[in-house]
């Protein structure tokens, strides 16, 4: 099942993913992103893909 991988070395907490998909991502108090829940279906997958391509620091990727 596809999930989102976060590279914490790259994440700078810009929050672009949270803006694109607030149900899936949240930048926490530590200043880096958390994935809030597993991807549910095609809608989630599409949102996650937007977030991956929209991440300015290429910190997100999708893994199977």
């Amino acid at each position, binding site marked *: 099942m596809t999930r989102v991988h976060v590279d914490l070395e790259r994440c*700078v*907490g810009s929050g672009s993913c949270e803006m694109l998909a607030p149900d899936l991502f949240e930048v926490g108090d530590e200043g880096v992103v958390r994935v809030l829940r597993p991807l549910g279906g095609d809608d989630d997958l599409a949102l996650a893909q937007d977030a991956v391509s929209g991440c300015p620091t290429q910190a997100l990727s999708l893994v199977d």
Partner: protein
Amino acid sequence: MDAVAVPGSSGPAAPQVEPLDLDHLDLDQLDLSDRDFWGRPPVERHAVFDLLRRERPFAFYEDPEVPMLEPGPGYYVVTRFADLEAISSQPAIFCSGKGAVSIPDLPADLSEFYGSMISMDDPRHAKIRRLVSKTFTPRMLERVVDSVRAIVDDVLAAARAKAEAGDGTIDVVSDIAAPIPLRVICDMMGIPEADRAMVLRESNIILSGGDPELIENQDDPLTAVLEAGIAMGALMERLAAERVENPRDDLTTALVTTEVDGERLTHQEIASFFILLLVAGNETTRTAISQGVLALSRYPEQRAAWAADPGLDRTAVEEIVRWASPITWMRRTATQDGDLHGHHYSAGDKFLLFYAAANRDPEVFDDPHVFDLARDPNPHVGFGAKGPHFCLGAHLARREIAVTFRALFDQMPDLDVTGEGDRLRSSFVNGLKRLPARLTGAR
């Protein structure tokens, strides 16, 4: 930040420039290092960008002449979106550490004030950035939004009072676009009221690009910029000492008390970071708001559509940032030899990433010269392109812009822009110094 990027050799009296013949542009006759080029109307600037993008995607220019600075070896102008993104997203090959906000390398005393994380590479950059990124998370900003609304309401009320007390006119820049981000960032950093006028004045000098109106002594623009840094540094000293004694819930406290990997930031790092936040927090959002107001006055049908539909907020804000491209460029320097999209480069080569040009690249944007508040998708690089230096304050800026325009529609439907405004003669900031307007509802 752009301490020495631009000061050119032209004197205070701006020569009346002949309009460019846009159908017969001669790239060999145009010099992007000449400050007068940046005083030209936007339509001419973008015509030149279009031509560079098509015909000379890596155009080479000599370093601008800056009094008292050794000219460097020249630089390449990057105007195509794909080239710009490739450079920005490979920070190991195209570094920021040789200087990101200045074409010539900065002398040591200026680096002290302006050598902030914007001109640093990882891993140091990442550590320092993480310090403040906590304060700029979308969730933290939700708490700031209410105060942004109050600030905007207050500023607009004061502007209306001024118009009504006077002849019905205001200056969109000094009465609306400047005070809003100034108050927001000063609140976040805990700058006392009494120091804010100074912060605005020195920020203007630091990002003046050597504009003669802001820097009187044209033979020695560096000293004015250096003195502005010293004044800001002195403010930081005072506040830092107070915050160590009495920590508060503000950014300045975070800067002076937080440890990164067990070490405090150095005095120099704190000073330059403090200046970066103040200057970046002020000048960029001001430019987006003032250029946005100007654009809406030129495209009244777009203005009407947005005013009627808050659902447009998200795309409208992005289009304003694309259209305004408040920061025109940042610099990167090659750390090794290589090839990029057919262009051979050598270690030490300097590249200026022209966000303003990439944001009108027809390969990426349909009808790039059309101002379309519903544009979606809009993968603009107005906050920087992919890479570790993407704008830290992007969310704050988006909030400030959205709240400001909604308040303008609600509270100032009678705002009538009466001129084109005075452009800052800077290659680095697409600023307006003044934008005259009238409140038709004022007596």
